[in-house]
């Protein structure tokens, strides 16, 4: 199977460790992973801020770069949801605007082949025990797009529960948004910060060492809030936990 890693622009630039973790994990599971060098951004920030027309060339570019792979794996529920849920909608809108089927046809091939990492592991590879070892207490925050747009359900939890040495603690109010929301964090800073603080407080109440999620953007917001509140907890991407082994443990 020709699998492409769609790392997302945020991870590529700010969180390369997550990319290395996905690579290590998938390679360990026998998947041959390629990283197409021409990949850039799925266009989500543009789309969600109201620049749909600017997002279109990015979506087309995404299709050009990834169209030929059998599966596209991304360690971001949010960017996964962009491709799976919003690319078809972009196609429909273009059609409604009298621009024909071209965009819809260009984007169609990548839509069903794009998987968020935990989906790919559970649904495509059929594994929940990925042979990981991570001797820490962890609480899991299901990010909104992973939870509601992609419907990741209990996949991430099942994967975490199978990790040796890991103790999973339930996060109170887990399904409440952390307040990141892309440009929302900048446009509505007070409300966003209040949501972030509440999220950090409920994570703290679990006593876990690590807060884990499947999206680095939310983790950036939560982690930035943790640092400001001098919380002892650390934000960690789920890929880094699943990639960790006894031989090569990650922090």
């Amino acid at each position, binding site marked *: 199977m020709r699998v492409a890693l769609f*790392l997302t622009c945020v991870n*590529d*630039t*700010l*969180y*390369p*460790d997550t*990319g*290395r973790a996905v690579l290590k994990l998938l390679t360990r599971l026998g998947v041959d992973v390629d*990283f197409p*060098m*021409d990949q*850039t*951004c799925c266009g989500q*920030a*543009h789309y*969600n*801020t*109201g*620049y*749909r027309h*600017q997002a279109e*060339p*990015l979506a087309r*570019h995404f299709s050009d770069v990834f169209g*030929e792979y059998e599966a596209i794996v991304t360690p971001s529920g949010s960017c996964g949801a962009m491709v799976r849920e919003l690319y078809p*909608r972009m196609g429909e*809108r273009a059609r*409604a605007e009298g621009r024909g089927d071209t965009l819809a046809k260009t984007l169609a091939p990548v839509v069903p082949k794009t998987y968020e990492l935990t989906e790919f592991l559970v649904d495509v590879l059929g594994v929940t025990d990925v042979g990981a070892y991570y001797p820490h207490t962890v609480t899991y925050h299901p990010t*909104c*797009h992973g*939870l*509601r*747009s992609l419907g990741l359900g209990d996949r991430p939890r099942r994967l975490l529960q199978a990790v040796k040495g890991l103790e999973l603690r339930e996060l109170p109010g887990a399904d*409440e*948004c952390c*307040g*990141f*929301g*892309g*440009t*929302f*964090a*900048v*446009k*509505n*800073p*007070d*409300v*966003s*910060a*209040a*949501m*972030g*603080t509440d999220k950090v407080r409920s994570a703290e109440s679990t006593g876990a060492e690590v807060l884990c999620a499947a999206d680095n953007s939310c983790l*950036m917001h939560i*982690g*930035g*809030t943790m640092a*400001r509140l001098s919380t002892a907890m650390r934000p960690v991407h789920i890929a880094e936990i699943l990639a960790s082994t006894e031989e090569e443990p990650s922090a």
Partner: protein
Amino acid sequence: MSGTFVGMPAFPEAAHDAVNNRTLRGNLRHATHTIRAKRAKAVAEVSDWAALREAGKQIKDHTLRHLDRYLVQLEESVTAAGGTVHWAADADEANRIVTRLVKETGETEVVKVKSMATQEIALNEALEAEGIRAYETDLAELIVQLGKDRPSHILVPAIHRNRGEIRDIFRSEMGAWGRPAPEGLTDTPAELADAARLHLREKFLRAKVGVSGANFMVAETGTLVVVESEGNGRMCLTLPETLISVVGIEKIVPTWQDLEVFLQTLPRSSTAERMNPYTSTWTGTTDGDGPRTFHLVLLDNGRTDTLADEVGRQALRCIRCSACLNVCPVYERAGGHAYGSVYPGPIGAILSPQLRGTASEIDASLPYASSLCGACYEVCPVAIDIPEVLVHLRERIVEGGPVTREGAKVVLKPAKGHAAERAAMRGARWAFSHPGALRAGQRLASRTRRFHPRTLPGPGKAWSASRDLPEVPAEPFRDWWQRTHGGKDAK
């Protein structure tokens, strides 16, 4: 929509005080979390909830698609049943009609059933200006009215008040409006409710004119439906001699059978009850029973313009259950007043800028008053994809585009004040379409990382005011990949 909120500051400023008001946030958090949990339970009891939700959506969409036909049918049915139908294009016209109708009765007082439509047009204020006093009879509306306050929730307009605050309002204000609060009134719910009951009873028995809205109007029989919890609405509908109902044109359902769906989904979504305590239906007039004169004022006020928008029109499916408010993390922190409209929360964020347009500061900021978390869509009993409409309206604001205003097609220009963002988005798009440029930018960020500030200037300041920035890594992933897997990239 009403002029009451004109000149409101944009949402972020309006929310600022609420976020820092601990009493308000405590009141809201407590109230929304309680009802949230109850709603989830009430919904989980119904095995075919998904089907009911879909049916509600279909019925509403069908009705909206053929609204012209059903409105005519409704007018015929109401007229045949002895009522009179009036058409109001906007708030002013509706207010003029109602004021005239009240004046024709010779009365200077009316009792009111809780109604969003009459709040939307600021009817009370319009009547007041003509020397007519409107008494709210819903408990929460009464609290808002006595407190000279504004409603902050669709269903529980006084949700932002706690019991102590309500007792204080009753004690100091009731006397000026009628029967004063009893001596030594405490803040126990039973005593508060009793004080309100006595105060209101006097009004019900005196009033000759009632004013209401409606939750639904059944086109086939011309029947208006009001669902409520307290029974005060039923008093207003049966005791006065004249009844005037102001109803948005989107409230139609074609048949009684269609009602069945909403009478299941509405109470569970709004008060988490299996069935609301009072469901009143009335059709025209009947001799010797209830009002002898019945007027129906059908209100447009931006609704046909909204209907013209393919993506945005789904907002007209709303049955005002308020479930979306109760799950919204932004509403919970910002409070209802920050939305600058009688429609707060997620539904307000998509409805107000459509009904009123996006020209004012507050309306242009509402589509951004959401983190797009999707909780509102998940609970909406008529499946309004609120995040989708929010993004659509953001597009209207930053990119401009065709809209319908007062029935005419116009093309909006992109809003001012987004120039920096527009430039940034264009720049980012350019870099993202030119992988080489993106790479150069990433490298530059990596090389200069030692000099990156921990706080940001300009719009970024809002980020670093309450959060630390992540550190830029020494090497972006793609450079690492190139270095370690260099030859493998060939497609």
